[in-house]
């Protein structure tokens, strides 16, 4: 798993690559929460390199989503691979996250 954070306009783009599963979900949470705790509340997860996510990984997205909702910030997900989209669909998560096909459209959307 690889987590990379870059600034793009108003948003912090967090790129996730590889697998997020039980073994490294804690690590993923720590990396993401560092960004969230720094006061940033405009976040886009670029998931183009994300191959697999387990429920522990989904939990991290949920934590961020809850924080953003509390802080009146924004969380967007983009570039989900079909397998990941499937997981989001099955779990009903698609309905609680703003999901965009690519980073560009995510940044442009209000």
């Amino acid at each position, binding site marked *: 798993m690889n987590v990379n954070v870059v600034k793009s306009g108003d948003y912090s783009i967090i790129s996730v690559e590889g697998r997020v599963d039980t073994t490294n979900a804690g690590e993923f949470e720590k990396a993401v929460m560092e960004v969230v705790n720094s006061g940033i509340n405009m976040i886009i997860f670029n998931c183009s390199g994300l191959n697999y996510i387990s429920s522990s990984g989904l939990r991290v997205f949920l934590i961020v989503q809850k924080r953003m909702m509390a802080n009146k910030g924004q969380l967007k997900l983009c570039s989900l691979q079909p397998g990941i989209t499937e997981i989001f669909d*099955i779990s009903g998560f698609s309905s609680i996250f703003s999901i965009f096909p690519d980073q560009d459209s995510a940044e442009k959307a209000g």
Partner: protein
Amino acid sequence: MKRTTLSYHIIRNVLLFCIGLFLVTFSIYYYFTRNTIRDDTSENAIFMAKNIVNRIEQVLTPAEKNPEIIAKMLESSFLDKDSLVPFLKSMLKGNQNVYGSIIAYEPNFFPEQGLYFAPYVYRQGDSINSSILGDKNYEYFYMDWYQIPKITNAPYWSEPYFDEGGGNVLMTTYSVPFYTYKNGQRTFSGIVTVDISLEWLTKIMSQVKILNTGYAFLLSRNGVIIAHPNKDYVMNQSIFTIARENNQPALRETGRKMIQGKSNFESAGFKSEWKPGKLWINYAPLPSSNWSIAVIYPEDEMFASLHRMNIILIVLILFGLSVLSFVIYKIVKKLTAPLKHFAESARLIAAGNFNVHLPEIKTDDEMKELHNSFSFMQKELGDYVINLKDTTAAKEKIESELRIAKEIQMSMIPHIFPPFPDLPQIDVFAVLKSAKEVGGDLYDFFVIDGNKFCFAIGDVSGKGVPASLFMAVTRTLVRSISDKEYSPSVIVGTLNKSISQNNESSMFVTFFLGVLDLSNGNLKYTNAGHNPPVIIKNNKEAVMFEKTKYIPVGLFEDFEYGESSLQLESGDKIFLYTDGVSEAENSENKLFGDGTIMDIVSMNVTASPRELIGKMEEGISAHVNGFAQSDDITMMTIVYNG
């Protein structure tokens, strides 16, 4: 492999090196020593030859003086005829080497004496006698000793000869011509001789000893042997007759050079019966008499001392090498003795005895370092094992607690099949396999009010102890909520509200809950973010439930859950599972997948709940092929026989 010792290796290598060194040193030593010995022996032989020459000359040169003085005295008429005999007698008395002396006059020199006049004085025993030689039977002036100096006008040493009439000794005669003045003319008048015994010569020669058997011999100017250790040769043989008899041309060549008055030191080209090996010869002339002396000795004697030395040297070196080997063996044994102990200690330590006694090292060298390292290892291993024991004990404690927790967890879900023998309308089979001791999956089923069959399957995010606690909470809440409630959406909604409050950890449960009315087959269900189950209609058609639009339980307390309904016919089956099934991975990270699930279900539409789950387990097991299970696996099959 043959076991060899360290001392064997060291001794072998050191010995090979020493032997090599010795061979090189010995070869050089041998070469130079051989040359030195040859040169020394040669010098010695030359010196000895010169010495003999000198000693012979010491006798011969004074012996020449007497006749020469007499000749001068006769020439100056210092002696008259009558005083000749007394004069010669007195000369003999004063010269022990002179055996006899003659003054032989020319025929008719003294007319009153007649044709012959040759006074002769000689030794007989201890007395000195005299006579006058010359008569018809002994016409001395035809003798060699008279003729040769007369003709050559020069003194002459005769060939040595045996004086058979006199003393039976080897003699030689020195003849000097003398002159008188007749009518003012210096005229040859006769010969003065001295006979000199050569007995002393044999004595001198016999004293010559070179090496063990080396000897000297003397040749006359004609090559006749004058002195030789073999008495039979003396005056009987010449070097040339010996060469011919023994067929040794090289000896003849040497003899020729000798009588030509040459001197040389050389390796002899000839062989001798006397010694079978190679011979060396050194020869030199005697200036006065034209004799030649030779010293001859065998080569093996020349180098005998060297060979003796070599044997001593080799014996010494062999002895030295043996001692060296022994000393090395002792030293190495002493030095490496602790190694054996270390090896034993290492074995004992490996066997778990960390308090084993290490050998004491008194030296401050590598062995000490080894000792220290060993001692350090011993201590570290001891500490490590104590640590490990503590850790293991703690781990075992946790494991045992986890085992108990697992038992408790498993006791919370129904696990007696068939669960409702008195309810023929329904049959259920379910399995739950945690990836760890305890897991976050759950299933449950129970009957409400006698005819409402409630069943649920769920998956808590994450695994292990936190998930299991969350699962226990969920299961307990479901049971208590559905105690008086039949609507799946109300049950799930109430569950969500309870869990969402105070959910600091943001954990969640995907949850499917259905309530089947056993009286009419009507199924109401709510899917909160769970994998859609599979329904098998009429024992032939398998389809997946639609994907849900409801999120998992525990996220937002105000979330509104709805419910769907489905009419089941008798024999319809529902297969429920968690993502541990669909996402079962093999070593290549390939997921089991919904498609495979559907395939297996479709192939086993008529199977009993237990059989279907068995087939699914086989399928999963074949797919993961021994790869470690990463997530909890839960499956439940319900068949409605209404």
